[in-house]
């Protein structure tokens, strides 16, 4: 089992979700996050004073998938999340040693 984590641009979420569904992914967990990276931040103004905003809104996806499909899922994400502009985000894979579905207690591939 693999855990795929992806940081993407918020407005790309719908596209990525649709692409993943099309690729038979059955479950995703989504978190609102903020990211700091090469994209850099910007300066905002308020009542004549300035302040720096260097954490940009991003969306974090988490998917546990079978080992065999992990790389393919990564490709799907990279393709559907990309705009070609800076700040598009990252995808990474980590190993999962056990997965359980709470409702049934099923484990492994049956659990996802």
């Amino acid at each position, binding site marked *: 089992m693999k855990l795929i984590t992806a940081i993407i641009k918020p407005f790309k979420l719908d596209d990525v979700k649709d692409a993943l569904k099309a690729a038979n992914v059955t479950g995703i967990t989504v978190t609102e996050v903020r990211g700091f990276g090469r994209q850099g931040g910007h300066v905002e103004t*308020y009542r004549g004073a300035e302040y720096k905003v260097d954490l940009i809104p991003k969306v974090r996806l988490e998917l546990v998938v079978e080992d065999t499909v992990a790389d393919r899922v990564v490709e799907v994400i990279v393709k559907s999340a990309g705009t070609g502009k800076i700040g598009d985000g990252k995808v990474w894979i980590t190993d999962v040693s056990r997965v359980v579905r709470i409702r049934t207690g099923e484990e492994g591939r049956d659990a996802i």
Partner: protein
Amino acid sequence: MARAAEDAPPSLEDLQSLVPGLQVTLDNVFILVATALVIFMHAGFVLVEAGLTRAKNAGNIVMKNFVNVAIGIVAFYLVGYAIAFGGVFDGLGAYIGGGGWLIGDGAFAYGNLTPFTFFIFQAAFAATAATIVSGAMAERTKFIGYVTYAVVMTAVIYPIVVRWQWGGGWLYQLSTPFHDFAGSTIVHMTGGVAAFAAARALGPRIGRYGADGKPRAIPGHSIPFAIIGCLILFVGWFGFNGGSWLGADPIVGRIATTTMIAAGAGAVVAALLTKLQSGKTDVAMTGNGLLAGLVGITAGCFAVTTVGSLIIGAVSGVLVVYAVAFFDKIKVDDPVGAISVHGVCGVFGTIAVGLFSNEEVEGVVAKGLFYGGGTDQLVSQIIGVVAVAAFVLVASVILFAVIKATVGLRVSEQEEREGLDVHEHGSPGYGSDRALA
């Protein structure tokens, strides 16, 4: 400050000047209070429009309504008031005024009101007509484009419409005068038609229609805001309709009664209808229903009976629900329902006077069709509605085309996605005090 109490009992002569003076005082003071209530309506517009749109544009939408008030006052003072009420009433003067600039020599006033008192009430109305449009333009309009519109609307377009009727122009001069007591047409439909032109010129928000072309709801970020806004508008309407008598009179009780009943009926009917349609009582639409009833009764609040007001309010409540769905379908994206509430119900309410009027006042209003008055009033109402709608539509279409070609009307896709607040105003409408803001 300044005024001292009288001591000796007044003589008959004193009384002869004191008593009419009292009515004058009462009239002016009442209109001051009514003006405060109408200004308060702007807080209602802010809340309704902010509530029914997204948080990322909250700073922008409140700013639009807010500067609108400021611009409206200044532009109406510098230009609009003279166009609406100044100069002679015949010839070209039946269509556009000019005179009594800056509330100076020759400034018009009505009845017992001083020109100043008359001005404040009218200025508050001018800002209202303009601000109606901001809701339909929400979430995608360039701020500079909106500001340009607001200046032209309060300085020129709305004042011309006012001229035709309240300013003593050609609609007022019809043999059976057009009757629009507090402005279903002059204020609300004017705003609603301009809103239609604006929404058409802008196109729908990104994501408002699915790939299948079907409308997809974009829920507003705060229903509590929207509903409090509706209640504030309701409160303000006591000044809007009551004050439109332009003086103090026991009649204001009846005007307020028809206003209240229509408002109540509009909300109840809209709530029921949404329940019947989807099984859920839609909150925002119920709010629209109340406003629909208020817009609908605004023309006839003086002339119709309480039963008439119940019917007008109820029909307005039905109309608004179907009108919102209709404009959705034809892809005119109006985030707050301004076109349906102010435009559609403004038309209906004005025409309803020709049906439900139960008053007969020479030079003001005749009985309506349902109360044995024939079609005279009805015809005048239709003339007024058509004329004003045509003028405002043409003027607005031109105005928005010019704005598009010059300062620009719609923001970039990126700005629309990220929200207008930071791009147009420097920082978000909702700051965060969390560490990761």
